[in-house]
């Protein structure tokens, strides 16, 4: 379900149980660089948010001092899924309760966007709000309830080879 005209945005927030330099956070903070490298070399990785002049986005706290944000872009859901759950990133997820407080609302949101323009962090926050308000929709969804890119919807008949259409014309 890869489509060069659309990319998948992934945005999540995590509420830290302690400041990042606290000894109790060592297990997380010591792995940040390695996991970011792992992401950058993962198939389908496109982009990740990084603070200017830094290696990561841990210094950016647009939603409050205790909230880390993680914002990345992927070619498709499968690439993101495989990185998230089928690399050493899984070990980090397994330990997440030690470093991040449990949230009663959604903390991770996905959505498709035209690949020439990466949405702002404000837009990402808006998508998370959409998910929290309406549950998974094509505009804001989750890894467990994914939606196809917009191009997987039936295209105008003009771009299809004549006679090759298998679906009824609109």
């Amino acid at each position, binding site marked *: 379900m890869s489509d060069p005209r659309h990319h998948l945005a992934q945005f999540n927030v995590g509420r830290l149980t302690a400041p990042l330099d606290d000894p109790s956070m060592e297990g997380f903070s010591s792995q940040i660089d390695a996991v970011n490298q792992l992401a950058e070399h993962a198939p389908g990785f496109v982009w990740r948010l990084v603070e200017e002049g830094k290696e990561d986005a841990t210094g950016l706290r647009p939603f409050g001092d205790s909230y880390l944000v993680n914002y990345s872009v992927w070619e498709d859901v499968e690439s993101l899924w495989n990185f998230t759950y089928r690399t050493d990133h*899984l070990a980090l997820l397994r330990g997440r309760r030690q470093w991040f407080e449990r949230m009663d609302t959604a903390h991770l949101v996905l959505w498709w966007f035209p690949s020439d323009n990466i949405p702002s962090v404000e837009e990402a926050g808006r998508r998370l709000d959409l998910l929290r308000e309406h549950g998974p929709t094509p505009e804001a969804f989750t890894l467990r309830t994914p939606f196809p890119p917009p191009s997987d919807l039936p295209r105008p008949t003009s771009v299809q080879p004549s006679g090759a259409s298998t679906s009824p014309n609109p």
Partner: protein
Amino acid sequence: MDDSSIDAAGALADPLRRRLYEYVADSGGEVSRGEAAEALGIRRTLAAHHLDRLEEAGLLEVERRRVNGREGPGAGRPAKLYRRAGHQLSLHLPPREYELAAHVLAEAVERHGAEEAVHAAAREEGRRLGAGSGAGSVEELLRERGYEPEEAGDDVRMRNCPFHTLARAFPPLACGLNLELLRGMLEGLGEDGDRARMAPRTEGCCVAVSKNKIR
């Protein structure tokens, strides 16, 4: 429960067919009619008949490919290669919905943040399984439990994930549960539980067990 599950189970009632199915599954890959016939010491036409019956029942998948790199006219028909089908067959009589229950319980555990309790319970269950198994080795126990172990360098890797559908829906939870279960099984056998570690990959089980003692 759907009719296809009953058909599939019925197809395995024939002992020869069951041996063929096990041979293909154990191979971990693709098997030709000739290879299967030779392995079981039966005629090729007989092997072909039963392999095709297993395919009809949805237990095997078939790929047609020319072997030996022959192409073009005179290359002959492509060979049929059989491998175990990816989908899962469940048969419970009377109907039981354990998988549905597992998904609901997993959702509740995530909502409540109770992973630590799951890990502890899995470790204890693993120890019981290991201690009560009577298996002579780690690999024997893994085989008994359906993990389909195979050697891979310094590790034992497992071709089958026993929690596949749960692990697709709740990866950190199911894989974490499995890791602790395996660590417990090792301990139940008197081995070091830390020989099992998380080492995810796209196919099979996400846990690797080192062949040698760590300490």
